[in-house]
């Protein structure tokens, strides 16, 4: 899932200050799970801005709503009237949601209410950690299901660096050394021989470093007449 965090309220307040009608849109997917942009967080952000407005005698109207997945056009389309009726849209989804609205309605100003962080998992209630950087070439079948690219601070590919100490990373002692974890995991799985397998230099061109990525599945794409048919139904 995508893990995000609410921007500081003063930053949000400053962004929306010049506008009168503000539509705050949350998302029920990843950002709801990481307690950043679900229904409650959307209402709380709007309410906090109203409290500030009460203090500063500013008149702003807030409309709050939440869509199922803000990164999908179909769901955004359902709230089109609320988007078009607003002076500005404050997206409480990840950057993908905000950009989807911005791309669909280029004449509308869309502000991000969250800082999008990383691809991660909920470790326990209130704790999320990064586990993938989306490098486009997964190798965790060789590393006991632990990604050294995301979980090692230096993305080491062939064992730990000299800074690994008692299973902890030198960058931050609260972080587990990814390669220590990989060693322990492979030992548990009786696959320790894999640790000696030398990995060649990683091809980073499959990641973001090779430029913006687009995946296409030709078999799933709609032909022109199918697109027209779908539009007609809508």
């Amino acid at each position, binding site marked *: 899932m995508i893990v995000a965090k609410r921007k*500081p*309220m*003063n930053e949000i*307040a400053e962004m929306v200050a010049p506008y009168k009608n503000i539509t705050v849109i949350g998302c029920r997917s990843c950002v709801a799970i990481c307690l950043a942009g679900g229904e*409650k967080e959307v*209402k*709380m952000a709007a*309410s*906090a*801005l*109203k*409290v*500030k407005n*009460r*203090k*500063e*005698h500013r008149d702003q109207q807030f409309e709050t709503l939440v869509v199922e997945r803000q990164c999908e056009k179909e769901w955004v389309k359902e709230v089109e009237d609320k988007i078009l009726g607003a002076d500005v849209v404050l997206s409480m989804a990840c950057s993908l949601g905000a950009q989807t609205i911005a791309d669909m309605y280029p004449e509308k100003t869309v502000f991000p209410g969250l800082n999008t962080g990383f691809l991660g998992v909920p470790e326990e209630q209130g704790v999320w950690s990064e586990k993938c950087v989306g490098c486009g070439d997964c190798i965790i079948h060789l590393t006991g299901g632990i990604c050294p690219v995301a979980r090692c601070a230096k993305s080491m590919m062939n064992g730990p660096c000299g800074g690994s100490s008692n299973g902890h990373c030198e960058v931050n002692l609260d972080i587990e050394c990814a390669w220590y974890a990989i060693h322990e995991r492979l030992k548990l799985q009786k696959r320790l021989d894999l640790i000696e397998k030398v990995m060649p230099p990683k091809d980073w061109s499959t990641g973001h470093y090779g430029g913006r990525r687009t995946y296409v599945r030709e078999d799933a794409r709609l032909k022109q007449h199918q697109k027209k048919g779908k539009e007609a139904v809508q």
Partner: protein
Amino acid sequence: MTDRRPKVVGFCCERHGMDAAVLAARSGRQYDASVRVIQVPCSGRVDGLHILKAFEDGADAVFVIGCLEKNCYYDTGSIEGRKRVEYVKGMLAELGIEKERVEMFNAASTNAWAFPEAASKMVEVAKRLGPLDMGGDTR
């Protein structure tokens, strides 16, 4: 300071918080009439949104009063309540609003003084900082 009577909202858990308030009344202790009490099943039921809504609708100060943390009727309810209060404090501070306007208190049902003391403290805070919509203090 202002002559306007401050508006203070107190979310009171129906166990020790409310019992302390009732005991205060029975023992003849008074608290400021500016305080509006909202009874909730547990201080852990109070959400940040409830606190913000109270401010939005005119409160100058808000407090939550629940059981003592190691003697909570619902075990961890008052700990949860405190966490919500702390979160809202953070949000208000980010917006340049005095975080002292919201507080969490704990009481045992036998503490007749606890509720009037919490109420008086918050009325005092609201008077000192002034009405929220008058700009209050700029800290």
